[in-house]
């Protein structure tokens, strides 16, 4: 009868705090527990470190010690399902929303949504930007813009963009904000992943473009959301970032 599946199962249960598997041998038998603890620590610390790499602002907000404990609980609730740890953490924002000890900080989940989106944008597929000249002669009533695979728009219930920005290294004096925010996240030509809070007009414009509406239609929605809205600054910003990758008429 194969013994290895049983060995792996018992070793893994012991990593999670269960009794040590049989047959462990240390130089001094009294030190078996301490030596096994190296594996326990490696698993816990490496997963916590992996999560911290994806969610540095959450760690900054809750502190290193709290974060390590939080990572342990999250790793148990939603362990990584592949060795590609950059993909781990899709459910972390929801986990924070439901985590009772953080109930007094309801914006944590939204900050985690921003950080998760930044990770996705960082690793998103490449796509070359269009030549700005193609926009000049286009008919807005027929023009549809294809956006870079990294572009993500997040409607957040809390002022999480402001919180995220205040917690960046070297952030100046950014005033606290209140109320919901919409975040625009993309990877620019220098591979940076800035986070921008959009006003209601820009948010409606972006939502329209991402939904594949024509430029005129998206601009109309923007004006409905914010009278006298000018789509130009956002479009110029997207162009500069290299985020417009396709045009169809």
């Amino acid at each position, binding site marked *: 009868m*194969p*013994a*290895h*599946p049983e*060995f*792996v*199962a018992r*070793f*893994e249960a012991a*990593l999670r705090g269960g009794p040590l598997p*049989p*047959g*462990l*041998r*240390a*130089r*001094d038998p*009294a*030190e*078996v527990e*301490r*030596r*096994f603890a*190296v*594996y326990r620590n*490696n*698993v816990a610390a*490496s*997963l916590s470190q*992996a999560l911290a790499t994806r969610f540095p602002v959450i760690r900054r907000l809750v502190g290193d010690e709290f974060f390590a404990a939080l990572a342990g609980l999250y790793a148990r609730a939603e*362990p*990584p*399902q*592949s*060795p*590609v*740890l*950059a993909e781990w953490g899709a459910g972390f924002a929801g986990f924070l929303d439901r985590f009772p000890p953080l109930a007094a900080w309801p914006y944590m989940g939204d900050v985690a949504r921003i950080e998760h989106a930044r990770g996705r944008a*960082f*690793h*998103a*597929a*490449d796509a070359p930007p269009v030549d700005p000249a193609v926009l000049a002669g286009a008919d807005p009533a027929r023009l549809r813009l294809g956006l870079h*695979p*990294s572009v993500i728009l997040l409607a957040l219930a809390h002022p999480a963009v402001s919180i995220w920005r205040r917690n960046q290294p070297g952030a100046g004096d950014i005033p606290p904000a209140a109320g919901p925010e919409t975040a625009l996240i993309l*990877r620019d030509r220098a*591979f940076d992943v800035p986070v921008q809070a959009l006003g209601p007009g820009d948010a409606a414009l972006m939502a329209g473009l991402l939904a594949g509406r024509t430029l005129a239609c998206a601009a109309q929605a923007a004006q409905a959301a914010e009278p006298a809205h000018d789509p130009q600054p956002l479009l110029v910003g997207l162009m500069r970032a290299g985020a417009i990758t396709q045009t169809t008429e």
Partner: protein
Amino acid sequence: MLPELPGVGFKPEHFAAIRQGAAGIGFFEVHAENYMGAGGLPHAQLAALRADRPLSIHGVGLSIGGARGLDAAHLDRLRLLCDRYDPDSFSEHLAWSSHGADYLNDLLPLPYTEETLALVCDHIDRVQTVLGRRILLENPATYLRFDQSTLPETAFLAEIARRTGCGLLLDVNNVFVSCTNHGTDPRAWLADLPLDLVGEIHLGGHAAEDLPSGPLLIDSHGAPVADPVWALYAEVIATAGPRPTLVEWDNDLPDWPVLAAEAARAGAILAQGGTRLARAS
């Protein structure tokens, strides 16, 4: 084949310094799992490194020593990565790191038995078939041994290589860490390993803790290579001749010149080994 020169584990923090020249560095090695996104900076940097120098892709997550079959999706990711960058070497570990679908992110140990030998060989056959290349298998750093084991680690590794045709990645720091932890002689371990199977050598730093029975060494990759490890390495090179040698430093990263100096130290030992062998022949 990698060149018989020193290489370093690539870290994005060092990219700008490396682009200034990185004289004496014969190859770079990356962890496969860090390059499995679709695009962006990691691939831009790796493509730039690959254009200039030989490349080693080192997997840390395939769980070759696992009890269930290999993760087909992950193996496919490795195949795509190898197809994309055509590395000069692909290597993995004699360890397991997944349980079911759950990934534990550590290189965990296995007993050395006829059963695990057959299992590991099956897994390596599959990897070599899917990747269409011979791989190198790395000896682990271990903190415990198992009553269940019926084969010494060196015999286990040599038999895997004999059955599958794979080569070995000799991590000299892991040999020193394991042998110190088990109270055995690293020189005897090295004397038992057929060094002609070694296609690459790893050197890294370890951490130490004092236990009543003696030191507990932990393979931390967060410090310079320790002097006893340098001494063992020089003996290996003197015996086996020069081998591609990687200095790995994954945690508490130093500035580039510190890492480059470690690689240069390996380079000096490699050059000496080459001269000695040339004189002997």
